[in-house]
Each structure stands twice: as C-alpha cells, then as structure tokens.
C-alpha cells in the first residue's frame, strides 16, 4: 500500500491536482449539505424540482431572496445550481459505476479467454465505437424519450466499449505472467484466477482513470440537457439552467449584459466541476505514465 501513499503525496504536492482535490471536495460538501444550503420551501414535494417565484418570463436580478437571481420562468438559480450538484454526482456516479462493471466483466472475459469470445466482444465494441458519441447518445435519448433515465442509459451505452477495451488490454498484459500460470497449474477455476489474480493485478490504473471520467460524463449529460434532451423542465440540472438563458443572452440596449447571472452562473458550476476532475486526472496520468514521469 506504500504505492498509494506515494501517489497521494504526489497529488498533494502538485498545486494543480491539489486544486482539483479541493474543488471536488467543495462540490461533495455542497451535494451532501444541499438541503441545508438551499432548503426546499415548505410544502415542496420533490426537492429536485426548482421552486418558482411566479411564472413571469424575464429573468430577475439577484436579490436577497434569490441571491443568484432567477432565470426564465422564475426558477431560482441558486437553488438550481446547489441541487444540480446532486444531480451531477448522481448521473456521473451511476454511469461510471455501470460502465465499469460492464467494462470489467466483458473486458476480462475477452482478454482472459481470447479466441472466439474475444473476437465477438471486440467486434461488438467496434459497432458502438463507429458512432460519434454525442450523436449516438442523442439518437438513444430521442428514441427512449427525453428524461434523466434516458440520459443515463444513453451515456452508458456510448461509453462502455472504451472501458471494455482498456481492461481487455490490461488483462492481456498479465495473462501470460507466471503467477497466473501457477494458479492455473494448481487447479484454480477460471473464475477464481480472473477474480483473485488477473483483475487485482491489472485494472487499478484503468479503474482510477475511469473514476476521474465523472467530469466528462457530467459534461456530456449537461450538453444533452442543454439541447433539450435531458431532465424534464424545472429539474435541478446545470445543463438545463444554461439552456433557459438562451433567450436572454442580450439584454436591453441600455444594459446589454443585464442577464449575465442567468447566462454565466450555471455554466460556471459545470466548468468548475469538470475542471476539478480533469485537474486530478491530468496529474494521475503523469503519475501512471512512468515513461513521462522520469523526465
């Protein structure tokens, strides 16, 4: 486990990854304490629905009651971005979780057994990888009907093949190692060899990198939401909050930047969330790539 200590020390030493850790930590705190930071109003049934202050279309300036102002349709921006943090973690964690399980199962089957199984699984990944990701995700969401669930399904479908391939590659590398041969020699079942010997020695780097892809997943989900292919209207979701501002990019000629809060604030939350994960991911890549680390 000294490897882990070494890694953590490297991450804390590097100012960029330290910044990433701090940003992610802040978002975790926001997500956990959302009900305290932005308490749902009395009698509000679903806390993920952003409370509205009337139905007037024009966004209202930040005030004491709405510290980030309200966006189109009088949705409270502050409430939306705080609870949107939870939605972001929800989508990111669920997608990465499913994708990793699918990727590990199919990747290790393909890598360990090789032959026909490998060929079939790899050709299936070819099919999925033949589409530009967002286009396939759009098609799937449009076919299933726009909803948060469809977004999760779509993002899972488009991203599992790359992880399956990565893990297959990792397994291929350890398959010929002596300890695998040895455990097979003493009669261990294939299942046991994969679970106890092949996987633990092969996949940690891939799993770590994959977990840091949460940022990318959330970015893609936000893009789908922005395009109107995501959560239903009024759901606390950063992408949707950004799309509400589309009609309010330009204020009246006397004050062209009047609605800046509606345009910028939700996007800044997306940017910093993704940035946090990417900062950490970039540092990890350097640590995990020994060829570059030496120089």
């Amino acid at each position, binding site marked *: 486990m000294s490897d882990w200590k070494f890694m953590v020390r490297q991450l804390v030493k590097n100012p960029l990854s330290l910044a990433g850790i701090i940003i992610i930590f802040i978002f975790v705190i926001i997500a956990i304490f959302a009900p305290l930071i932005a308490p749902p109003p009395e009698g509000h049934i679903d806390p993920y629905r952003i409370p509205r202050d009337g139905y007037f279309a024009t966004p209202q300036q930040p005030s004491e009651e709405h510290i980030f102002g309200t966006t189109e349709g009088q949705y409270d921006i502050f409430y939306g971005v705080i609870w949107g943090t939870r939605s972001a973690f929800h989508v990111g964690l669920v997608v990465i979780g499913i994708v990793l399980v699918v990727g590990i199962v199919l990747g290790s089957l393909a890598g360990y057994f090789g032959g026909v199984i490998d060929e079939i699984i790899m050709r299936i990944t070819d099919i999925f990888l033949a589409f530009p990701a967002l286009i396939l995700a759009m*098609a799937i969401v*449009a*076919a299933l009907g726009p909803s948060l669930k469809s977004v999760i399904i779509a993002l899972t479908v488009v991203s599992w093949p790359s992880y399956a391939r990565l893990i297959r590659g990792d397994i291929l590398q350890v398959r010929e190692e002596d300890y695998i041969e040895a455990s097979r020699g003493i009669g261990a079942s294939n299942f046991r060899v994969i679970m106890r010997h092949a996987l633990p020695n092969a996949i940690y780097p891939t799993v770590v990198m994959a977990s840091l892809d949460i940022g990318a997943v959330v970015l893609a989900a936000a893009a789908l939401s922005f395009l109107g292919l995501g959560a239903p209207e009024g759901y606390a979701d950063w992408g949707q909050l950004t799309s509400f501002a589309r009609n309010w990019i330009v204020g009246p000629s006397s004050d062209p930047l009047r609605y800046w809060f509606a345009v910028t604030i939700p996007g800044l939350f997306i*940017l910093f969330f993704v940035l946090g994960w990417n900062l950490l991911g970039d540092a990890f890549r350097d640590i995990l790539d020994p060829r570059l680390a030496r120089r």
Partner: protein
Amino acid sequence: MELRSYIIRRLILLIPVLFGVTIFIFGITMLFSPIERVSLYVTDARQFTNIPALIEMYGLDQPFWVQYGNWMGEIFSGNLGWSRVVGMPVWDAIWHFLPTTLELAIFATPIIIFTGIFLGTQAAAHKDRPLDHGTRVMAIFGWSLPTFWVGLVLLMVFYGYFTGLLPPSRLSVPMELLVQSAEFTRYTRINTIDAILNLNGPVLLDALRHLILPIITLSVVQMAFIMRLTRSSMLESLGKGYVLTARAKGLSERVVVNKHARRNALIPVITVAGYLFAGMVNGVVITETIFTFKGIGWWAWQSAVRLDIASVLGFALFNAVLFVLVNLVVDILYTRVDPRVRLGGTVQ
C-alpha cells in the same frame, strides 16, 4: 501490391461493422410500435387516415429479419426515410445542410490542428517553465469548458456588449437576400467560397463576421486536446537518441525541436484524426444549435428535439459510415507516414 491488398482487407473487415451498425440502428427503431413507425414513411398528413393499410404496405407487422431486409433495401436505394422537420427526404436534407457545416469545418480544422501543434511543441520545448505550465492550465481549462456555455458567453459579449459586432446565424438579412437572388451564383452553397467566386466583397466580409464566434466555440476544446497530445508526444521524442545526436552536432535548438523532434512526434497526432473528426461532429451539433447556424448539426438537433426519429437515425447512420471511413483513411495514411508500421499491423 501490398498496400492495395491491405486496403481491400480493411474494406472487407468494414462489412461486419457496418452490418452491426445497421442492425443496431434498426433495433432502435424497433423500440417503437408499428403505428409509430409508420410515421417514418409518411410524407403527407392525409396519409394518416389509413394507418393499417400503410402498416401492411410497408410490412411493419412482419418478423424482424424481413423488416430489416426491407429497410436495408430501402437504404441501398437511397431512401433513409422522411425528415419531418424540414419536409424532405433525409438524404436530401443531409446534402442540403452539409455545405453550411463544411464551411465551419474548413476554417476550424486547420486552426485546431496548427494552433494545437504549435502550442504543444512550445510547451514541450519549455517543459516545466512558465510557458509549459501556462499552456497546461489553458488546456485543462479548455477541455473542461462546456462548449454550449462558451458559445453563449461569447454571444453575450460580442453580440450584446459590443452591439451586433459578431452576430449569430450565417448571414445578415440583406446579404442573405442578395445571396438568394439571381445575381449571385451559388456554386458550392459555402458562402465564403461562393462570395470569392462571385467576386463579392461585402458577402465575404459578412460571412466571415458570422463565422468567427462559431469557429472559436468549435475549436477551443479540440485544440486543447491536440495541444496536450503533441506535448506528450514531443517530450517522448525529445528524449530520443537522434535528438541528442542532432544537438551534439551543434544544430540550433529551433532546428532540433521543429525538424528532428517534431516530425517524429507528429505521427501519434495523426492517429487521433479519427477522434478529432468525432469531436468535430459532436461540437458541430452544439455550435450550430447555439448560433442558429443552420447546418447538419442544427438539423440533427431540431430532429432530436421534435422526436423525428427517421432523421436522427439517418444522421447517426451517415456519421457512423463517415467515421468508419475516416478511420480507414487515417490508418492508411499512418502506414505512409511511418515506414516502421508494416501493413500486417505489427510494428518492427
């Protein structure tokens, strides 16, 4: 010849992939009931009066494989379905919207590639110095940026704050009318190129004015990607023996970096051209949506939002075929650029 047999082998290998792609796309349409799927073929609202007859006519109550066969037959005869959003066949819609998107791509692609490679090289040449850290932070920032949000903020500043300086859409109204009029020949329907061919300065300037923001929006993320890739590839190449030799010969640092190291460092960059293409397609959908730049991406978005499944799937299929072909071309180019790559797929 070796290369020809390689290409032929690769083309044959494409067949199962494309077969899988079509099965997958068709599988998605099968999520819908026959009644819903009839609308893929309906071109006129009056036809809805006789749905059962239509279902029978198109064989929508047949088993999966029969329907798949019919569908593939239609596709091979060029019928991808009917695009409700624009009221024309999907295939025509793709051709109708393609020039607009090409106009964006023609400008964005060189900017992405050259700027990305230039900054990446500089970062590697100044490793661990302020320039390297600066570009690194820029790159991480760049690919954390939500493209759609960048577009909105750019519009807010350059369309709102600097009133009307860089507006959305493709052309301003008077220019649009001029372009549509008989005096203006639309050779390619790519405005900038047509304007040059027509020797029409005002249209050219207006088209460029409308292009600046979409190009920036489309380029930021991809540029960051190319830059980081060039950097790490350059670092590897700078540590090689031939670079040491070049330095020992007393060549200037500029020649060493730009000639000896970079030429070899670019090989891995070529391999990601496929990813770049996919990234551009994704970016085009978002960029065109924000700027109402009515190209293929805008059409795909409209179709998806209005649940026009025929168009969305037609577009997806078109892109999949294109993407697969791009990857094939990239692989062939790769063998040309790097003589060490042998066509069997192994590196010596």
